[in-house]
C-alpha cells in the first residue's frame, strides 16, 4: 500500500532518493545488527550502486547511516571524514552479488564488526527512498524498514510462538504482524515479527536467552 507521505517525502540530503536516501537507510538498518556504530565496515556495492555511487554520495550516505545519521542529516556530506575521526574503519569494494535478473541493480552487502559481534546484511534500494533487506548472516529475510522488526530462527519446539509473544508482552512490545515459515516439520522456524514499539538490545538478548532460539536480530524502523 502506497502512503501519501511516501510520495511527499522523505526529507533528505540529495541528490538521489535511491542512491543517497535509500543507501543511508540501508546503513541505518545494518547498524542495528551490531548494536551501535561499528568499528569496522566492509561495504560491497553491486550494479548501479557500484557504477554511479560515488557521484551520488552513496558511500557517504551508507557510512553516515552506519553512524546513525538519518537521510535528512547534513552531516552525511562529510560522513567519511567524521567516520575517520570517530574510529569507524570502512572500506568499499565493487562486487557482483548475484545475476542481473535475480539481484536488484541497487544492492549492497555490508559486513560489520563491533566488539565481539560480527554480522552481514544484504539489501537493496528500490527507489523513492524505499529499501528492502534480503539477507542477514546468510538467512533470507524480508524487511522493509517501515516497522520495527524482529527476525529470528528457532528450533521447531511446541509453544515457541506463545513464549516469544509472552516475552515481548513482558518487555512492553506490541506485535503488529507475525510471519512464521518452516521448510519442513521439525525443521527450523523462521519468524519475522513487526512490532509497534522499538525493541531495545535487551529484547534481542532476552530472545537469544531461549535455548531453542538459534539466532535473533532487531531492526529499528527507518521510515513510516
Amino acid at each position, binding site marked *: *500500500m*502506497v*502512503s*501519501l*507521505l*511516501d*510520495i*511527499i*517525502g*522523505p*526529507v*533528505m*540530503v*540529495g*541528490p*538521489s*532518493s*535511491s*542512491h*543517497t*536516501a535509500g543507501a543511508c537507510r540501508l546503513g541505518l538498518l545494518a547498524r542495528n545488527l551490531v548494536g551501535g556504530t561499528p568499528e569496522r565496515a566492509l561495504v560491497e556495492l553491486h550494479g*548501479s550502486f557500484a*557504477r*554511479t555511487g*560515488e*557521484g*551520488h*554520495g552513496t558511500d557517504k550516505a551508507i557510512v553516515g547511516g552506519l553512524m546513525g545519521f538519518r537521510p*535528512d542529516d*547534513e552531516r*552525511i*556530506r562529510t560522513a*567519511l571524514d567524521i567516520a575517520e575521526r570517530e574510529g569507524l574503519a570502512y572500506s568499499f569494494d565493487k562486487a557482483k552479488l548475484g545475476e542481473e535478473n535475480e539481484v536488484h*541493480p*541497487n544492492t549492497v552487502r555490508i559486513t560489520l564488526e563491533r566488539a565481539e559481534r560480527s554480522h552481514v546484511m544484504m539489501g537493496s534500494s*528500490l*527507489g*523513492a*527512498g524505499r529499501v528492502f533487506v534480503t539477507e542477514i548472516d546468510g538467512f533470507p529475510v524480508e524487511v522493509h524498514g517501515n516497522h520495527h522488526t524482529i527476525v529470528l530462527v528457532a528450533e521447531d519446539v511446541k509453544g515457541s510462538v506463545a513464549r516469544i509473544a509472552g516475552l515481548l508482552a513482558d518487555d512492553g512490545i506490541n506485535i503488529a504482524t507475525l510471519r512464521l515459515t518452516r521448510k519442513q516439520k521439525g525443521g527450523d522456524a523462521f519468524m519475522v515479527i513487526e512490532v509497534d514499539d522499538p525493541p531495545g538490545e535487551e529484547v534481542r538478548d532476552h530472545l537469544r536467552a531461549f535455548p531453542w532460539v538459534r539466532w535473533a536480530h532487531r531492526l529499528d524502523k527507518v521510515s513510516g
Partner: protein
Amino acid sequence: MFTSLHAAIAAAEKESTSLSAVALALEAKDQGRPVAEIRDALRRALVVMRGAVEQGLVGDLKSASGLVGGDAAKVHQSVAGPFSGTPFASVIARALAVQEVNAAMGVIVAAPTAGGAGVLPAVLTGLAEAKQIDDERLIDALATAGLIGAVVAERASLSGAEGGCQAETGAAAGMAAGAATEMLGGTPRQVGHAVALAQQGTLGLVCDPLGGLVELPCVFRNATGAAIALAAVEMALAGVEFAIPADEVIDTMGEIGRSMDVRYRETAGGGLAATPTGRRLAKERLVSIKRSGA
C-alpha cells in the same frame, strides 16, 4: 490510498468535497493516525521545500561534478526574458533552485523522487505567492499531489530506472498540475484533466543523465517539467478537457516505461549521456570527483 484517480474523483464528487479532503481522510484511515498528524507532516515538508527554494535562488551552490549550479539565480535576477518578473519565470527559477540544492547534497523533499523534486515546490510555492494562497491550502495541495503520485506509483512507476524520466519529472508535472488546479479553485474533475494534460506532454521522456548523476539534464528537466505543469493548469482551469482519462494516460506511461530500452532508464547508456560531449564531460567530471574525494 486510491489506486485510480477515477475512484478518487467519484468519492470527492459524491461527498461534494475536494480531492485533498478525500485523500487526507483515506491516508488517516490507512495509517491509523489523525488527519492533523498527516497535515503536520506535510507542513514540515512545505518548510523544507521553501528552504530549498530560498537556498537555491542565492546561486552559490555547485554540484559534486561542478556541471550544474548558479542557473536558478540567473533566471531569478534576469530582466531579459519575455516572462521576466512574472509568476512563470518565478516558477522556472524555483524549479532550477531546488534541483541545484539537490545536486549539491542539500536538503530537499523527494516528491516524488529526488531527481524530480524541483517541479512540485516550484509550481505550488510560486503560484501560491503570486495568488496569495495561505499555507493551509498549500498543505491541501500537497495532499492532492501525494494522492496523484500514489496512483502513478500503483499503476505505473515513479522510478527513472524503471520508467524513464516520464516516471520522475513527468509524474512530478502531473502531481504539480493537479495540485495547483485544486489550489486555484478547480473542481476534482478539472484536477483529473490537469493530470492528463501534463502527463500526456511527458510521455516517452527518457532518463539519460550524464555519468548517471542527478545533475544534467535533470536540473533543466525539472524546469521544463514545471513549464508543462503550468500549461496544463492554464488549460484545465479554462475548462479544457482531455479525452483520454488521467488513469489511462498514467497506464500508458507505465506501458511505455516497461518497453523502454534499458539505455534510456538511468543507466547513462543512451540519450544525452551518450552524446560525444556527454561522454567527454562525464569522464572528465567523474575523474575530478574521485580526485577530490567528494
